[in-house]
């Protein structure tokens, strides 16, 4: 009987508990999907409890530090929680760097490598929700788990793979290290090839030392560029500019140079011809009588025939012929006929 009277209360209690749990679940779910970059960082006492967010405009700027790149800062609470609002970020995915500084150091501090590496990279946009949490220790960002925005998780995975490159320098022989490093770069290229997210893909390729790999693996890069042909972001523009120019463009340059030389030669030749034409005609040096005699010589007439034609003395004809030879700079009758 007593149990029966308690039944409605129990039901009510159960329903209330269910409602509370449901609200909690909804709240947590909404929290995970609220746009922003937030999380929990547990830091050693050497670090200032402030987190900075920087925009990385190109992949070449990943290791560039200036305060102008810092777009936001957030303080850590006593538990290490922090939160960046992201409503001012770009609608497109961009690369960002989260970093911390040591106590007493300027906020624009970048430490690369070693136990005090002070930064990590994330990809996101104004709508993405990124939640990160580290495991206490050094380097502070190496054991970081990311939840929420999928591309940010994929980027973290790329970094996790890349971390092995440095660790191979510490473990094993140099030969083994080289072998492992090559395998890691190959793995990064595989990620670049298979990732459906353009920035994550390019990030992986950038990490794989593409500059040294390009000459021996050109077809891969040609295929890669073709795949992301439509990408107009600064990240891809910079990447394209870093690759050697296409061979067809080299030929175009050679063809253009050749064409320029051809035109120059043509113009020069034309100019010289005109100059030659414009030079004094040796026949003009001849007198009227000498020209007439030259015409007779060209007809194949002898001196005697010429003297009879013009009714002048033979010696006079010889004198004219001699003068013609001198003025035309010739030495024989045959040359005079061919002139």
């Amino acid at each position, binding site marked *: 009987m007593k149990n029966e009277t308690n039944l409605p209360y129990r039901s009510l209690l159960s329903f209330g508990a269910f409602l509370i749990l449901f609200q909690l679940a909804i709240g947590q779910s909404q929290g995970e999907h609220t746009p922003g970059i937030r999380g929990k960082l547990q830091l050693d006492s050497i670090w200032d409890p402030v987190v900075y967010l920087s925009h990385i405009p190109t992949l070449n700027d990943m290791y560039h*530090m200036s305060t102008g790149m810092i777009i936001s800062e957030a303080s850590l609470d006593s538990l290490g929680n922090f939160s960046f609002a992201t409503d001012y970020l770009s609608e497109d995915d961009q690369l960002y760097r989260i970093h911390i500084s040591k106590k007493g150091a300027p906020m624009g501090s970048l430490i690369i490598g070693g136990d005090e590496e002070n930064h990590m990279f994330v990809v996101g946009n104004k709508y993405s929700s990124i939640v990160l949490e580290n495991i206490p220790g050094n380097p502070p960002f190496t054991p970081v788990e990311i939840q929420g925005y999928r591309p940010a998780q994929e980027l973290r995975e790329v970094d996790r793979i890349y971390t092995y490159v440095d660790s191979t320098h510490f473990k094993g022989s140099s030969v083994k290290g080289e072998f492992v490093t090559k395998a890691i770069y190959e793995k990064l290229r595989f990620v670049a090839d298979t990732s459906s997210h353009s920035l994550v893909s390019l990030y992986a390729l950038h990490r794989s030392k593409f500059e040294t790999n390009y000459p021996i693996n050109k077809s891969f890069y040609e295929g890669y560029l073709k795949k992301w042909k439509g990408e107009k972001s600064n990240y891809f523009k910079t990447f394209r500019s870093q690759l050697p120019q296409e061979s067809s463009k080299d030929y175009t340059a050679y063809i253009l140079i050749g064409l320029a030389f051809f035109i120059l030669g043509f113009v020069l030749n034309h100019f010289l011809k005109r100059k030659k034409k414009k030079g004094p005609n040796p026949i003009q040096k001849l007198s009227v009588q000498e020209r007439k005699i030259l015409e007779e010589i060209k007809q194949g007439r002898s001196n005697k025939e010429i003297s009879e034609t013009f009714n002048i003395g033979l010696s006079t004809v010889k004198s004219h012929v001699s003068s013609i030879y001198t003025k035309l700079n010739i030495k024989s009758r045959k040359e005079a006929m061919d002139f």
Partner: protein
Amino acid sequence: MKTSIKIIVLVMFLLGSGPTLFAQRGSNSNSNHNSNHNNNHNCSSSSTTKSISLEDSSKNESVTISVTDEVKCLNIGVSSNISSGALTMEIYNPEGDKQGNFSVESELNSSSSNTGKSSETVCGQLNKTFKEPMKGDWVIKLKPKKVTGKVQIHSHQASSN
């Protein structure tokens, strides 16, 4: 009776195996000791530190670290602290492959500092360790553009003779 037999067997076992265990432990201890001893005798290390002060400098500088065959581990640390200008630092191995880089830029230039605006310091630091590094000259290139600040280059080489 059975209990006493067990105790006797246990005592006999301990007596029998004791010297072996002790000998084993002693051997390990000696081995470690020898190892350390050998390390102390056959391994040497050297460190160098170079500090460079830049005053509105735009002159490129290179610092060379010579590495011999005997070097088993090379650690290079470069830290910079600049109050104006822009500085790029790159590390190259003897084959000319870039092994690391960073750049720092202070947004306040010298002229604004002169006008009384508070100076802005920017720090960059890079630490790299190379196991069995390539023999030859490792080069650290500094490319400053109107930089005022300090750069410190530290290298540590551990080698076995």
